[in-house]
């Protein structure tokens, strides 16, 4: 069984944004301070759990990066994957979800053997809202489920547990399949073993180069910091000890909020 994990990475959200916000500066922030997003981590952990359950599972990761020295490649490889590739999609802006999906699908088709299961975080990078993952599945023409927490493989099917609105359900999909994975307590990424971190430090990585033109029909016309949400009046700080604060809180909640 070959599992592919597509991991986009994000710029460390704790770092301040560049003063002059432009596409290049944001790309540089991502390149210099990359992290796996909570959703990338969930997808990777799910792949590792499937390998724990069946040691014959092979895991390949494909990570969009600008160079083979991107630290994210090492981070990913330190989890002892079978193969880790970089994918150069610098020429495709991250908000062009259809273009990114085309490129990812084209990259998948260069893999030999082709994966039976593709795992992707429910959001792909810093500018995606779920559009890209759905389109990657469509481009690959595979069965698809979103918001998956866990998967069990059974011959030519998977049984996935997923969130659907307010309820959870179990779905059976034929392989090959794509699952977009959501964050959950069950899919918190494990820490790599120190020896595997050391091995990953010495690894060299290959890039998948795509030559075919990528469609793009959306242009970015402006980028700006999101407006800061502020209030006209300052926050009313409740005075006194915990009991006094609790009394006023109870009054406020009962006066304004009670759903009855």
């Amino acid at each position, binding site marked *: 069984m070959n599992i592919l994990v597509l991991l986009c990475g*994000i710029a460390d*959200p704790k770092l301040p944004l560049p003063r002059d*916000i432009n596409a290049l500066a*944001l790309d540089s922030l991502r390149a210099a301070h990359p992290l796996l997003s*909570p959703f990338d981590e969930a997808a990777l952990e799910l792949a590792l759990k499937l390998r724990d359950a069946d040691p014959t599972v092979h895991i390949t990761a494909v990570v969009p990066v600008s160079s083979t020295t991107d630290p994210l490649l090492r981070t990913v490889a330190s989890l002892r994957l079978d193969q880790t590739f970089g994918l150069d999609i610098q020429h495709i802006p991250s*908000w062009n*979800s*259809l273009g990114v*999906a085309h490129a990812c699908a084209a990259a998948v088709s260069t893999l030999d053997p082709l994966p039976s299961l593709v795992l992707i975080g*429910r959001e792909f990078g*810093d*500018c995606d*809202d*779920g*559009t*890209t993952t*759905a*389109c990657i599945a*469509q481009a690959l023409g595979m069965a698809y489920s*979103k*918001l998956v927490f866990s998967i069990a493989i059974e011959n030519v099917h998977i049984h996935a547990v997923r969130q659907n*609105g*307010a*309820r*959870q*359900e179990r*779905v*059976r*999909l034929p392989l090959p399949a794509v699952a977009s994975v959501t*964050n*959950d*307590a069950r899919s918190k990424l494990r820490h790599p073993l120190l020896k595997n971190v050391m091995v990953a430090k010495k690894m060299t990585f290959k890039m998948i180069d795509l030559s075919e033109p990528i469609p793009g*029909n*959306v*242009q*970015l*016309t*402006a*980028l*700006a910091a*999101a*407006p800061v*949400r502020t*209030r006209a*009046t300052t*926050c*009313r*700080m409740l005075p006194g000890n*915990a009991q006094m*604060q*609790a009394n*006023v*809180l*109870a009054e406020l*909640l*009962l006066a*304004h*909020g*009670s*759903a009855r």
Partner: protein
Amino acid sequence: MSMSSMRRIVVVLLPTQDAAEQHSLLNAAAAMSSDHHCPLDIVALRGGTQVDVTPAPDLPAHATWWDVVHDGLVQLSTDSLAELAAQALAAAQLAPTMPRLVLLPPGPDGIEVAALLAWRMDGAALGQCMKLEIDGAAVIGHRAGHGGRIMLTLRTQQAQCFATLRAETRPERSALCIAPDRHALALSGTLPEACDVTSIEQTDALPSLEGAKLIVSGGRGMQGDEGFGLLRDIAQRLNGALGGSLPTVDAGWIPVARQIGQSGKFVSPRIYLAVGISGTLQHLAGISSETTIIAVNKDPDAPIFSVAEAGAVGDWREILPALLDRLESTAAEPA
């Protein structure tokens, strides 16, 4: 305005959609339609087994409402809904004689159906927009990136353009609302094969976040199940819903269906009680600007206090038990 620069606005309503979100999407679409003199169609998808017809609200613009019925739509999966929406958009009654802006409800289902339609119909995908404008032949979408920290302005001239819209605009009070012209549209094209789905029994009996008037929400500062137990009791006492930030989902204190924020649910209760939540943009992106936030946090400099109406600086371990006692004793008092 010349016909060549005109766009038909088509709203696709999904049967899985929350009524409040449906209402604000329709009002935003009607406002765009009257501002830009664009025809407005509403395509309400409905399965063959679904008996109740979506009530068509009066809108501040002339609109044509299509009740789309397909006897084969048994499973409300997004690929079936995307296929049915594609069939409806190709129907003669809705034929694309002019460029279209197709709007879907915000949230995972709307995003997926919009993406699948854009992919299949060689359209432009603008993603989850907070605002949309029509500028001659172009559509301009405004949406967030980098966890709500930046705003992207995207422009496309593509004839078929797809977006989800989370609009907080309310119709003007003075606007005259009229009933849409209502028609049935029966479709019978092939739908994807249903897949094998079974529901998992619900262990979480609290009301859902959708439509909740009061939400009690916890963050990483709750430090474990014990704190969330108290929040749950307070929510129950107030008939409210329970929510949390992303780290609390990752820690397993609440299910992902209760995650609020940029990547979770968008909520618009009257009151949002935020306990042990710092107030990051990623979290605040999930709370309506019309909601009153009340915060409890031990750090007086926590950013949540700059968006809260009232706040208590202190440890939840002291404040929450006292709050629960007070709520219980108030409930026990004779009216």
